[in-house]
């Protein structure tokens, strides 16, 4: 592939200071390149550095050393305001704890990023209607975030992150607060935008989410211990009980 990678991290390191001033390495020399249209799932035990890594890639935390390039642009040397501009233009981020604007409606929360990026009000509204519809939230458009359940807020956060059709979607446990029916809506939307070419890098424990990805990156103690394709095994039409049984070779 000769296209500019959407993400390129080079020897990325993050060391926190513990309460007693001791250095705590969270990310230890990560190299990661993500090509346009790729869907990468980052997995690993708690404390392996997954969340730190995705926060570094989104500029929500500063790296200790190493380089971050987003869509061909050096990002790790940017100021906080430089990052804010870059994120607004290129990155949608779904946090573990949503970060919705409390005094705006759901509809406005979702439209805001598109409007900030210069979309026409009509385009922003259409995109918002499509995303809320896909996530089963159409009738919550006029509500305030505080009136929503955790699962609803999480889905609004995903809609907001996708409003802009960002160059890169970053997400930290995007199904962490969802029951299985709502997870299904999120899975369907992620699969759909991915098929439309959306580049996605997300942290997940949820095997269903990881199963949508093209590639899995596994972290252990702040280092990548596995990075490879999730190969499609076989394709068969239908969806009967027999298929599942056969899949498991019983």
């Amino acid at each position: 592939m000769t296209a500019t990678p959407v993400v390129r991290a080079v020897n990325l390191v993050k060391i926190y200071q513990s309460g007693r001033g001791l250095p705590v390495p969270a990310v230890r020399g990560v190299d990661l390149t993500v090509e346009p249209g790729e869907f990468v799932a980052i997995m690993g035990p708690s404390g392996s550095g997954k969340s730190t890594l995705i926060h570094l890639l989104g500029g929500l935390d500063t790296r200790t050393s190493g380089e971050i390039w987003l869509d061909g642009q050096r990002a790790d040397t940017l100021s906080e305001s430089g990052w804010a501009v870059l994120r607004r233009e290129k990155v949608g981020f779904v946090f573990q704890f949503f970060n919705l604007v409390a005094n705006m409606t759901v509809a406005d929360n979702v439209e805001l990023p598109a409007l900030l990026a210069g979309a026409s009000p009509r385009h922003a509204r259409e995109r918002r209607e499509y995303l809320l519809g896909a996530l089963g939230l159409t009738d919550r458009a006029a509500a305030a975030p505080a009136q929503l359940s955790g699962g609803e807020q999480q889905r609004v956060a995903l809609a907001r992150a996708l409003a802009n059709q960002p160059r890169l979607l970053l997400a930290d446990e995007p199904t962490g607060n969802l029951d299985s029916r709502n997870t299904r809506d999120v899975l369907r939307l992620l699969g759909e935008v991915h098929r439309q070419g959306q580049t996605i890098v997300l942290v997940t424990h949820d095997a269903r989410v990881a199963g949508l990805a093209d590639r899995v990156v596994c972290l252990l103690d702040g280092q990548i211990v596995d990075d490879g394709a999730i190969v499609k095994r076989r394709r068969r039409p239908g969806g009967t009980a027999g298929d599942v049984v056969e899949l498991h070779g019983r």
Partner: protein
Amino acid sequence: MRQLLLALLAKEPAHGYELKQALESIFGSAYPSPNIGQIYVTLGRLEKDGYVRSVDVEQANRPNKKVYYITAAGRESLENWVEEPTEGPRVRDEFFMKLVLAPMTGLSDRMALINRQRRHYLSLMRDLNELAEAADPDNRVALLLIEGAMLHLQADLDWLERCQEELP
């Protein structure tokens, strides 16, 4: 059973009873203790297939005992067993045995086995996602079966992560 005995013999030659004891001591009381007759029958078949050979060792005041050792063909069969991904929840124990035994024989390290197995589970999950998407939304049996398989896979993945954290 065949591959378990081959793995033990890849570590060192042994006679039947030593193999039984080795299985018991490695897997502890949770492992159903193999019947000695079954072990000898399996060894006989392995020998017939050319995967093991035996030599008679004389013992004072007792009948000779047969000590088994693995052949090149046996090692190859074992290598295939170690390398191929392990299917489905029913044979999860088999994966665990690979995980415990393979590093002892120097055939593979645990990290490589765990990573290979994780990718395998995720590709199964990928198939299940596609099946779920293609399934008739009114066919509850099919959907539940898919969901059940997904939950098994989730548990398998969580457990792999635990193995990765806990085993050296």
